[in-house]
């Protein structure tokens, strides 16, 4: 179930040059989101940009005692996120959510693979099962590892890779994964979110392993509610290949089912 509601901006603060943390409070009672779900946020008041943009729920607070807050971690990429970044405390914003299936909550130890902003989507499961995650966290550089301290405190173990080697190992996180016994010899469930390239890499890596990988996908979205058929991914389903809507049947899919082009 999801809702369409108005919210007020509590905060929209810069964490560094192009990463921001948005906190909003719904102006009407709303349901609480599950890990891996997302919201469609209106990013401006004019027709340019026109469409809402999808953002994973990063943290939600106060749903049990009525002071609801929804937090989003986002990166300024293009027109929409730039516009969102200009919204100020007190501004109103229209929202659809929570949307999507979300991650199945792990029962015991699990592996998390986050690439860049993918961490936002995975944070709720780290928070839910504290100190049970082996976190592989890849980013372009030190600056992009914005919430490193928080996720470190929530993880059992953390392995970092940055493109420029400014923190952790130099290189992409998939290369680090390759040599990790967690992938080679284990069968802990994997939760991953990040650039398509990272997910494709993961899919190669686990091809012959017996590991369940839950991956959250990214695609342009127009409606966010399953109506426009804009946000599809090709998946295997009962022996045939079909397009499924990331906003409705996803955003989380079993990596095994995805048909990469």
């Amino acid at each position, binding site marked *: *179930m*999801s*809702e*369409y509601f108005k919210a007020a901006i509590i905060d929209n603060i810069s964490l560094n040059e192009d990463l921001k943390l948005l906190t909003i409070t719904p102006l009407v009672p709303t349901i609480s989101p599950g890990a891996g779900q997302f919201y469609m946020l*209106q990013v401006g008041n004019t*027709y*340019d*940009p*026109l*469409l*809402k943009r999808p953002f994973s729920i990063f943290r939600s607070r106060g749903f049990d005692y009525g002071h609801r807050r929804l937090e989003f971690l986002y990166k300024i990429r293009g*027109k*929409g996120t730039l516009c969102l970044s200009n919204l100020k405390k007190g501004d109103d914003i*229209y929202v*659809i959510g929570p949307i999507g299936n979300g991650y199945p909550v792990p029962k015991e130890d699990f592996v998390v693979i986050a690439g860049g902003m993918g961490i936002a989507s995975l944070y709720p499961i780290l928070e839910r099962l504290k100190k049970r995650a082996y976190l592989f966290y890849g980013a372009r550089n030190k600056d992009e590892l914005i919430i490193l301290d928080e996720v470190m405190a929530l993880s059992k173990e953390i392995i970092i890779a940055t493109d420029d080697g400014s923190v952790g190992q130099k290189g992409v996180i998939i290369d680090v994964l390759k040599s990790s016994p967690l992938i080679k010899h284990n069968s802990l469930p994997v939760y991953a979110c990040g650039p398509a390239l990272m997910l494709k890499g993961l899919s190669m890596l686990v091809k012959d392993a017996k590991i369940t990988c839950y991956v959250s996908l990214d*695609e*342009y*979205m*127009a*409606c*966010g*509610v*399953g*109506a*426009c*058929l*804009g*946000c*599809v*991914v*090709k998946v295997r389903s009962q022996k045939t290949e*079909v*397009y499924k809507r990331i906003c*409705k049947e996803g955003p989380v899919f079993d990596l095994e089912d995805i048909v990469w*082009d």
Partner: protein
Amino acid sequence: MGLESREERVELSVDIAGVRLKNPVMTSSGTFGYGEEYSEFVDLNRLGAIVVKGLSVTPKEGNPPPRIVEAPAGMLNAIGLQNIGIKAFIREKLPFLRQFKTHIIVNFFGDSIGEYVQAAEELSNASASDGGIHALEMNISCPNKEDGWIVFGTDPKAMKQVVTAVRKTTNLPLIIKLSPNVTDIGLMARVVEDSGADAVSLINTIIGMVVDVKKRRPMLANTTGGLSGPAVRPIAVRMVWEVYRAVKIPIIGMGGIMTTNDALEFLVAGAKAVAVGTGNFVNPLATIEIIDGLGRFLAEEGIYNVNNITGSLEI
């Protein structure tokens, strides 16, 4: 008399192709799924009609992603007419839609005259046996794969053939959805009227392209896509006005409608009803707000019947 009680007196119902809609505001095909998707946010009972995503005889897989890209004050889509097929629709989606006190208009298409006819036949049969389909909207912006891939909706001759053939097949009210990618939309509307259509709807999307200049590739996997949203509204309003002067059958106007004012532009230019497409994505409650807004506007203006505003443009 206060505004509120005057609003109550406003007659919003309109007659399109023999179907009496409770108000002139409908959803446009492909932007409202099969109705279900928005039923969480929108009270479907309040809508004048729901037009469902375009259907074909056999299910269609659609285009590979990316299928959508934003453009200034608009968006392009190249969904590729993905749909579950008429049979699955009747079995799986129609029962849900039948629960609501609104009219269901089924948008359909084919890639040959034969397919169009078969689609119309299957839908008419379903309607005859179980009801629930109140009108057909025929999307003619599709190429005829049997005849050189000429797009039906941009060629008067092909259009005449396919509309005439479908008209013979069905007794359901038949709305033809016009393509804006033509030199003379008034002419197209006349051809459609002469071929026996009960109404026309316009505009479908305008073909456009966005280029990723770094990759030197189109942003859409399909190369081109259909432009919709506020960006196209002035073009759509102009076309409705041209069609209004060309034919007598009722017009359903659409293209970039987001607000009551937008809907009124179409009505004043000659539309009897309007449809909200891309606007649903931006504001899921757009249709409801427009229905309420129309009542308010007409009461304020002292026009107590929405039909009286259709074509009221003075030039």
